[in-house]
């Protein structure tokens, strides 16, 4: 029995459902372990902390072995507190805040952490793009965006660039004043660490107000809502995110991912091409590693499974090679992909894969 | 007997579990002036509200100009020719005197007729003309009462229902108001008036009904009621 705690409605519903699909497909591929059928208990946390805690508690009641999710750090952390206390394994699919896995030994994640993402992006913007001045837009009331912007800002400064930070809050739609603020700063590039709900109007207004600079974003932009929302304004937008099959350096892992992608489009019939992304892979792999750990432990005893998971080395996941041994629950080596949107119109857009970078390299 | 203008057949009305009217029968003929009397809480206001449709008829039927109107909404009944001077005045407080009067003529479209009636109302209540632009809510109690009367007259009704029109009026005006009611009645408008001032009311009315705990306990020509011994004792306070 495996619990799934995801943001299926509310603000992050889109990513939540993508992740859920990934888990479902993985479940179809490996429906059984130790001769028993794996039962998925789905719980929607409505993108609220309270909902996330309620889900966690429900899982404690139903006696699941492990919980997959949640997506964002804001929902993962409170659930992790409950599950850690109850001694249930949790694998957050895409929480990137470093805090999450520090809560305890039962908490794992599938993603990289933001310090890598921020550092890599800064290195790219200052190094590869050669920007001397960068304007940074962050959503100040979100753990993820705020933290990420901080890591970016630090590294960029370290690399010798000047930065100017502009703050906004969730649900902001009008950015004109902030844009006017960076006008005399004359940035060479712009870093955006927020989500698509704000990102689409942001990009639209950015272009309307005559800014032509390169904009770089992060994995929250890995969401069809971005190009579909703002259309051509997203053309040329570059962002970091979970690696898609092509960007995975390890050829074996790449193959696995490709195979999974095929399966995915077979199973999820009305999926659009853009719906397949790193979140799907992360969802699938969080399921896979848990099942693998159960198998390795040879029992459904939670403690044993946790130990198996904690000692897991080089598991061949669809998102790459997964090693938990010797970490706080964050896999050792994750590939961060760099992408670029090529957008003609809201309905005609492409995600170009640029290159991948391994977090192991930065370490 | 001519065709009745208004008829209540066996009407009962309820406020939740409380039965406020109990099998009331009443008839009004065109051109009559009928007076409704009764002690406090006997259901007089409720009777008017039932006729107007502000209180739902629980059992029984109400006919107006030959048509059964109890399932119809209030505005329909007004359209058919009722007008009302409500209990406790109830003018529109945030509208001027003029606007209040215009609201009285809401269903009419003949600008000329409205103008005539406006002048007529002013001739009855000169105070209203003085205060045309004042917010009705800031007028004194008696002034509001005049306004409520004037407003009812503005619709040129067939039947005018009045709930204590003399309440709060100076003695001089009370007389005037009953004269006005009389003239209104003589213009052919049927008048149904609830009045505590039974002496005056009965002296100008044609007939009267007396309510007690929601039941009609007495009815008859006004003169008879005026001289009815029990009636005098019960309502006119004479021993």
């Amino acid at each position, binding site marked *: 029995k495996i619990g799934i705690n995801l943001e299926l409605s509310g603000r992050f519903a889109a990513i939540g459902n993508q992740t859920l699909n990934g888990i479902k497909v993985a479940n179809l591929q490996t429906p059984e372990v130790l001769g028993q059928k794996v039962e998925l208990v789905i719980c929607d946390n409505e993108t609220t*902390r309270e909902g996330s805690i309620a889900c966690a508690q429900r899982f404690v009641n139903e006696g699941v072995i492990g919980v997959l999710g949640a997506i964002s750090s804001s929902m993962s952390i409170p659930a992790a507190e409950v599950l850690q206390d109850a001694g249930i394994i949790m694998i957050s699919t895409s929480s990137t805040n470093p805090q999450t896995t520090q809560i305890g030994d039962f908490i794992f994640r599938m993603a990289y952490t933001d310090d890598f993402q921020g550092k890599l992006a800064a290195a790219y913007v200052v190094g590869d793009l050669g920007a001397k001045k960068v304007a940074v837009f962050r959503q100040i*009331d979100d753990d993820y965006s*705020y933290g990420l912007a901080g890591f970016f800002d630090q590294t960029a400064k370290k690399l010798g660039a000047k930065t100017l930070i502009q703050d906004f809050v969730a649900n902001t739609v009008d950015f004109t004043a902030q844009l006017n603020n960076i006008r005399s700063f004359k940035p060479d590039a712009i870093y955006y660490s927020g989500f698509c709900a704000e990102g689409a109007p942001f990009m639209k207004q950015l272009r309307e107000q005559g800014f032509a600079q390169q904009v770089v974003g992060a994995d929250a932009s890995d969401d069809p809502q971005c190009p579909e929302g703002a259309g051509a304004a997203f053309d040329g937008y570059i962002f970091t995110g979970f690696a898609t099959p092509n960007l995975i350096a390890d050829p074996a892992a790449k193959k696995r991912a490709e195979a999974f992608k095929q399966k995915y489009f077979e199973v999820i019939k009305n999926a659009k091409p853009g719906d397949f992304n790193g979140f799907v892979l992360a969802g699938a792999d969080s399921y896979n590693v848990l099942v693998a750990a159960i198998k390795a432990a040879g029992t459904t005893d939670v403690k044993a499974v946790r130990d198996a998971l904690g000692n897991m080395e080089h598991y061949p996941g669809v998102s790459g090679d997964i090693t938990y041994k010797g970490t706080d629950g964050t896999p050792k080596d994750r590939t961060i992909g760099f992408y670029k949107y090529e957008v003609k119109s809201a309905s005609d857009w492409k995600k170009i894969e640029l290159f991948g970078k391994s977090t192991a390299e930065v370490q | 007997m001519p065709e009745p203008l208004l008829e209540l057949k066996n009407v009962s009305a309820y406020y939740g579990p409380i039965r406020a009217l109990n099998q009331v029968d009443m008839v009004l003929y065109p051109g009559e002036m009928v007076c409704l009397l009764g002690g406090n809480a006997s259901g007089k206001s409720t009777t008017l509200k039932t006729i107007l449709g502000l209180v739902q008829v629980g059992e029984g039927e109400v006919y107006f100009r030959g048509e059964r109107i109890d399932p119809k909404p209030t505005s329909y009944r007004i359209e058919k020719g009722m007008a009302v001077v409500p209990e406790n005045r109830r003018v529109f407080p945030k509208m001027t005197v003029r606007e209040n009067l215009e609201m009285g003529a809401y269903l009419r479209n003949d600008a000329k007729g409205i103008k005539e009636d406006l002048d007529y109302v002013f001739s009855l209540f000169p105070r209203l003309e003085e205060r045309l632009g004042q917010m009705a809510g800031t007028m004194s109690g008696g002034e509001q009462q005049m306004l409520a009367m004037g407003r009812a007259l503005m619709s040129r009704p067939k039947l005018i229902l009045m709930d204590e029109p003399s309440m709060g009026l100076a003695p001089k005006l009370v007389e005037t108001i009953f004269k006005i009611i009389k003239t209104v009645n003589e213009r052919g408008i049927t008048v149904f008036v609830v009045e505590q001032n039974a002496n005056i009311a009965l002296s100008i009315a044609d007939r009267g009904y007396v309510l007690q705990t929601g039941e009609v306990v007495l009815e008859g020509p006004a003169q008879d009621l005026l001289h009815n011994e029990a009636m005098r004792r*019960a309502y006119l306070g004479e021993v």
Partner: protein
Amino acid sequence: MRNTLLTLATVGLAILGLYLLTQAEGSSGLLSALTLIFIWGIAAVSLNLINGQLGILSLGHHGFMLIGGYVTALLMLPEKERAPFRTRLLSDWARNHLDLDKWLRGAGLDFIANSIDLKFVVALFLAGLAAAVVGVIVGAPSLRLKGDYLAIVTFGFGEIIRLLPNAPEVAALTNGPLGIKGIPGDAGTVWWTFFAFLFVLWFLTRLKFSSYGRAFEGIREDEIAAEAMGVNLAYHKVLAFTISAFFAGVAGGLYASYLQSVDTQTFNFFVTFFLLVAISLGGLGSITGAVLGTAIVVLVRIYGGFLEKPYPAYVGYLGGAVVMLSAFAFSAYIRKARRLRPVVETKHLIFGALGVALLLVTVLFRNEPWMTQTVQFFGLRKILLAVILILIMIYRREGIMGRAEFSWKLIFGPREDIPTEEQRKQDAWLSNPDLNPDAAKKEDDDASA
């Protein structure tokens, strides 16, 4: 006397039940539901004090809860913090100065120290106090305003309070938008919330049925009249507002402890919205109603989950048909009970027709793929809640309890406020003694004598 005994017995039973529940296997879901009911119940009855009893639409309750949450968080934060914090000024201070348990142990009162965490009591009290102080600051100037002007100002204050912990100047203490995590959660368990809830209920019920409570209700009914009757408007409004803020702060503290984290997004306007829904469902002005409403809302939110499970589409169609048909029957029933005619309104026939149509569709197309495919609707619970609320407002506009409170009399005693026919007759005799059959008889007797 009997009533007091009954009340005590009920409380005793509740404690026993709760105890058994905590011992039972697999009850943690139910327990956390109860915990939430108690926490939100405290917040709801405190909001009810202003919105229901004082009759002032206040939309800033989340602000007071947030203050309580932050204060509790800062005071209760353990020493070994998981997250790196920039400042732990307050929590360090609290650990050194507020640890009553240490003193108790020093005084040899170990058994108290072992059974309850006194520091949490103090923290909650201070949380309430902080909220109450802000309540005075907010209330004193703004309560002069009336109606919706006041509503929007309280909303404004609520939002300001909510956004302030993010301000750079205080972020060192509050950790900015990221909030404080790792508050010890054992303090937020069901016993704590239960007793806090009992206390608040006791307090507010007593307040309501005191002269002060009546004064509040007088203000709600007619400010001008209340003032003319000697009630000091400003004092009483600020008083109610402050007490309400105090308990909101307590609720916020408990909630923070339950969530083990506090931040500015948790206590957003939806919190107040949710509380409003709860108290109006139960009946504005009624404490019992507020509790009942909260219970319904929380339970629907937690246990309504089955509505959002995947099921074959025909279940949905059938469910729709049942809803429509019962809506039809229900409206007819209500109209009949209210003596409204006609019993079946033409427009309500739509419900019946739709119900029958849905039923037909289900039967006719029972084998079609779109009828057997699995569907899943997220968000049905909230829709259900909204529909319940609208229905209650339509058919019982004053809410489930209206303004009444639960009392033993309601169950055992006669209704005092609805007169019998007999009483009304007697009332009429006051105006007209002639109609009094006794009097008439007496006269007859006199005459015959």
